[in-house]
């Protein structure tokens, strides 16, 4: 009984602070770093980004002797260096979705919105924290992947390209920027759909299903439409070469940023209006 009666005394809080955007961001950082599943997925993304280019560089080097000239001409060192980006974008997208849908599926969102009933600071904080983490975490791997794959290729004196070669630095760093934007886009989709499976399916539909379908269209239609797709616009960030059917890196990036902003704007409107 004594333990029970002691427990009644609630310690008073010395002073109470108001909710600020910065405090909500700190809270979201705590949420992000305290989920083991998040950390493992990010780790997997980092590992894939480094290991795939190293693997492709090694395979290309060892098979170089038996490749036809046509095959050799088809290989590009930057494609090898950034091969991991295409794979880890899925890991980043799934994480971006989970940052928000994980709260809906567990009921955590009610606690979050009780603490921050204006709601929008939660969306902005989640987006900013995840974007910064995704960029800072993916930038070293793309750089490592570039220099590691170049080191392997240069030992066989093939497919060498310098980091100072025009467009190379932009493409490599652009790979990390692209991954960050993919994460933001996916987070927005997650906030709109609110359901993990539905949001991942929506993202996969936009990024992996619609683009190949474009090839069925008459090629002049395909060329006219395809470059406006989010995945194609974003890809210009880490593509070295650009032709008449694709945007420049700057224009592509701008369009992709526009898609991210649009997704977040829709998410923001729905977030404030819908019941939780």
């Amino acid at each position, binding site marked *: 009984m004594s333990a029970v009666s002691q427990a*009644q005394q609630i310690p*008073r809080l010395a002073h109470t602070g108001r909710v600020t955007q910065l*405090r909500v961001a700190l809270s979201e950082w705590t949420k992000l770093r305290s989920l083991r599943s998040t950390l493992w997925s990010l780790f997997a993304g980092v590992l894939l980004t480094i290991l795939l280019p190293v693997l492709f560089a090694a395979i290309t080097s060892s098979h170089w002797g038996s490749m036809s000239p046509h095959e050799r001409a088809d290989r590009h060192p930057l494609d090898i260096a950034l091969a991991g980006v295409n794979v880890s974008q899925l890991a980043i997208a799934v994480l971006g979705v989970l940052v928000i849908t994980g709260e809906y599926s567990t009921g955590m969102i009610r606690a979050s919105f*009780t603490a*921050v009933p204006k709601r929008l600071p939660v969306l902005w904080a989640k987006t900013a924290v995840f974007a910064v983490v995704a960029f800072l975490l993916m930038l070293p791997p793309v750089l490592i992947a570039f220099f590691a794959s170049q080191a392997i290729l240069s030992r066989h004196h093939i497919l060498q390209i310098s980091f100072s070669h025009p467009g190379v630095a932009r493409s490599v760093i652009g790979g990390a920027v692209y991954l960050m934007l993919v994460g933001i886009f996916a987070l927005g989709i997650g906030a709109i759909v609110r359901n993990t499976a539905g949001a991942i399916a929506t993202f996969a539909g936009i990024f992996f299903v619609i683009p190949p379908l474009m090839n069925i269209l008459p090629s002049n239609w395909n060329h006219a439409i395809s470059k406006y797709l989010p995945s194609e616009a974003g890809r210009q960030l880490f593509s070295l070469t650009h032709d008449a059917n694709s945007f420049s890196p700057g224009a592509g990036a701008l369009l992709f940023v526009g898609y991210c902003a649009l997704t977040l704007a829709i998410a923001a409107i729905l977030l404030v209006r819908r*019941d939780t």
Partner: protein
Amino acid sequence: MATMIEAENLTKYYGEQRAVDDLSFTVQPGVVTGFLGPNGSGKSTTMRLILELDAPSSGDVTVNGKHYRDHTAPLHEVGALLEARSVHTGRSAYNHLLALAQTHGIGRRRVDELIDLVGLHDVARKRAGKFSLGMGQRLGIAAALLGDPSTIMLDEPVNGLDPEGILWVRHLLRGLAAEGRTVFVSSHLMSEMSLTADHLIVIGRGRKIADMSTDEFIRQASGGLVLVRTPQAAELEALLSGPDVTVTAAGPGLLEVRGLTAVQIGEAAAANQLVLHELTPQQASLEEAFMTLTRDDVEFKAAELEPEEAVL
């Protein structure tokens, strides 16, 4: 500024379903107010409306004079435990509380204090998904107390708690009310509420059925039947008799008292140094009366022509 919850003609539809129906009430500070109703009667919906997790279809509700969303430090105004768990299953109890605390600039020491207070010290670093229902409730209560709120709102807090835990919650709620805070607790168990709450708001099918002190509700609902066993039956009968009280002898040394609560009878006996061997409020009939009350309301709504007396 008054610390209270004020609902005015609160109504909530989910599609065609009317979950809360023209509900008006005030929850006062300094007492424990029980929010009583059968499952599905709209208690949780009302609490979500108070926190503005859901928007009302019509009507209005304020906490401490403002809409919940307009408070600059909401966790300092209202601490809430919601019925469905509101915790990410993959996060530890400590990090869950820390993340909530950080939105208000509340420090780690406060988080540690509350973890100790609710008795989760040994499992604070374990994933909340592994918690039992009772541990989950304790974590929810810790979250509710984080901001040292003037209003505490708990949805079915004793669900899943063991007897010691139930007793702990009861003491906690009474202590919080004694400090002058507004305490609003929902339950579908009349017996639990009769032990905890000073005031009751009873709803059925989203409509208010009763809004009165617990003593008065018990007197009305159960006919106030209390069994008293005493070797001094005659003296006690003479002592208790009054205009609104009926005392009948149910056997040798056994009285049935209507119109007084067990507390009142016990205190009257003690003040007059009468020996009591048994003092039993008829709790079974209390639960029954509560069910009859809420069922009547449902029937009353279904057949609008029934006379009003059917309600109570």
